[in-house]
């Protein structure tokens, strides 16, 4: 009895994580593993039919044209959006860090799109801006320029969604700004005395010192970009000609339009594995380029 009491007292903290543990098992671990199982079946939620083990779903991802295109489009989208967003965010954060008057006002203005950008209202706005007879095209027309048909031209539609996400560079910028404030001013003073130009200072002092934050932003933004759903679903519905059908949209269509849960699960797992590979590459590579100030070397 006494022992039990002692054990209970020692482990009292466990009580506090019970809700999390239940949530983890029921809403994360079980669904996660069950989707691995379903990915090897052709389970259809509507008919309830499943014919047992198959690798076909995985083969399809890399052989069927629609699925292959979706995978490639997702890569294109991520590698277009993330670098643009990060470069822009860092550039603006760098300028804001010069302690100009009104910095807080600018910071707020730049941050507004980030906080509202996920909403459907902003997707609606984007459609109004980039429609074939929308604001951007009529603006260019006033200047006598025939702008591309962003909404109906397969070459431009993906870029339009990309621009929507780059427009939301605010949160990445705020994180960069916080990091830039942490770079000791003495370093710049010393470099200035040595005659280093501002550009030189930026690439030789600023960038190396904020690599942990660059790394952080890179990983989080990549993970987000690979999962983009709202933009293509609301603005372009995956079109024109499937040019904005990203993986997450394809998964949605397979799972919730045709109820092909097996296929959708396999696609989700392919996407998951790709994300894990990128995360792992980032973590592995950080040894070589990320500078942590508290390390001895």
């Amino acid at each position, binding site marked *: 009895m006494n022992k039990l009491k002692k054990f209970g007292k020692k*482990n009292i*903290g*466990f009580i*506090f*994580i019970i*809700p*999390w543990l*239940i*949530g*983890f098992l029921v*809403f*994360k671990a079980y*669904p*996660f593993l069950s*989707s691995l199982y379903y990915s090897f079946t052709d389970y259809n939620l509507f008919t309830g039919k499943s014919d047992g083990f198959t690798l076909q779903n995985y083969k399809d991802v890399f052989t069927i044209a629609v699925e292959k295109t979706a995978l490639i489009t997702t890569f294109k989208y991520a590698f277009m959006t993330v670098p643009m967003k990060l470069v822009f965010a860092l550039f603006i954060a760098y*300028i*804001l860090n*010069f*302690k100009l*008057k009104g*910095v*807080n006002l600018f*910071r707020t203005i*730049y*941050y507004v*799109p980030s*906080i*509202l950008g*996920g*909403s*459907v*209202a902003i997707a*609606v*706005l984007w*459609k*109004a801006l980039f429609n074939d007879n929308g*604001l951007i095209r*009529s603006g260019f027309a006033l200047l006598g320029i025939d702008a591309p048909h962003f909404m109906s031209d397969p070459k431009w539609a993906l870029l339009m969604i990309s621009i929507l996400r780059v*427009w939301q560079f*605010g*949160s990445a910028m*705020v*994180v960069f700004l916080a990091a830039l404030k942490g770079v000791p001013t003495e370093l*710049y003073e010393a470099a*200035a005395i040595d005659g280093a130009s501002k550009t030189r200072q930026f690439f030789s002092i600023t960038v190396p010192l904020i690599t942990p*934050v660059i790394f952080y932003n890179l990983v989080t933004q990549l*993970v*987000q970009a*690979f*999962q983009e759903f709202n933009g293509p679903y*609301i603005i372009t519905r995956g079109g024109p000609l499937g040019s904005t059908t990203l*993986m997450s949209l394809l*998964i949605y269509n397979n799972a919730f339009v045709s109820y092909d849960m097996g296929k*959708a*699960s396999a696609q*989700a*797992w392919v*996407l*998951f594995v790709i994300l*894990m590979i990128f995360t792992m590459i980032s973590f592995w590579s950080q040894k070589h380029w990320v500078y942590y100030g508290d390390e001895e070397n």
Partner: protein
Amino acid sequence: MSIENNNIETSEKTDITPKADIKKSDKVEMTPVLGKKSLSKEAKRANRNLMVRRGINTFLRYFVLILVGAIMIYPLIWMVGAAFKNNSEIFSSMNPIPIKGTLDGFKNAVKSYGGNINIWKSMLNTYSYVIPQVILTVVSSVLTAYGFARFKFVGHDILFGLMMAMLFLPQVVLNVPQYMLFNKFGWVGSEHYLPLIVPAAFATETYFIFMLIQFLRGVPKELEESAQIDGCNVFQILIKIIVPMIMPAVVSCALFKFMWASNDFIGPLLYVKTPAKYPATIFVKLSMDSDAGFDWNRVLATSLISIMPNILVFFAAQNQFIEGISAGGVKG
């Protein structure tokens, strides 16, 4: 223009810390100037050149900031203006200010849609699950963070590792199997938004746990120790000491959860099936699908009404948002 100036001044007043830094950075660029009395002609000229260069630099920086800011904010301002325009005027010029202002867009926006849903009702629906989500997420995340950060128990390290691994588990893999799970429970199309609300009670937003643990690590343990000596139990310590101390982080979590939950689109898309129960996100999407192309002022007015609460919350608490995001970085 005068409004902008006012804003600059007020935002300057609230900002205390950078002032010391301004002096510092001035010193960096002024280094060529040595003593004031013994300035030679060349030094004076060099000094003047430096001042000119600094002036140009400052000008360029402001120029970029204002230009980028204008591009950033223009679509939003245009949206507000367009909601007050009539449909023939909306795309006819880039000017965000309506020439012949009309309230038609708003009048049509608040009309009932198909009898049993309108914008107000859909917003009410949104907050009927967003507010429980916020409260449950905050409570369950605080409990979990407290448990992991302040106690050692059997399996602590393994569970902590699993918890952190959840940060990297993308929602896109979970959508399909979670749907099947909730389907088994009979929760799909639930009148009470069960699939949206119930998981929030079980600390499923790993990011917030992580953020709270980071914050807790910075809070000294002495107060808790002395409270323990005074006879407080672990629950009393949590409520009387921990919660007040980590209040800033708790507020940040609540604010971000509020924004994300009210913007959430795929959740309600999957789990809300009856039109009378549609939240604002779905309602706006549907009204766009049915009216875009001919009734833009209505569509834009509807969109604008739907994000007004978020805009108000953001401006009321902008510092908490920005500090929250700087503290650990938040997706978005």
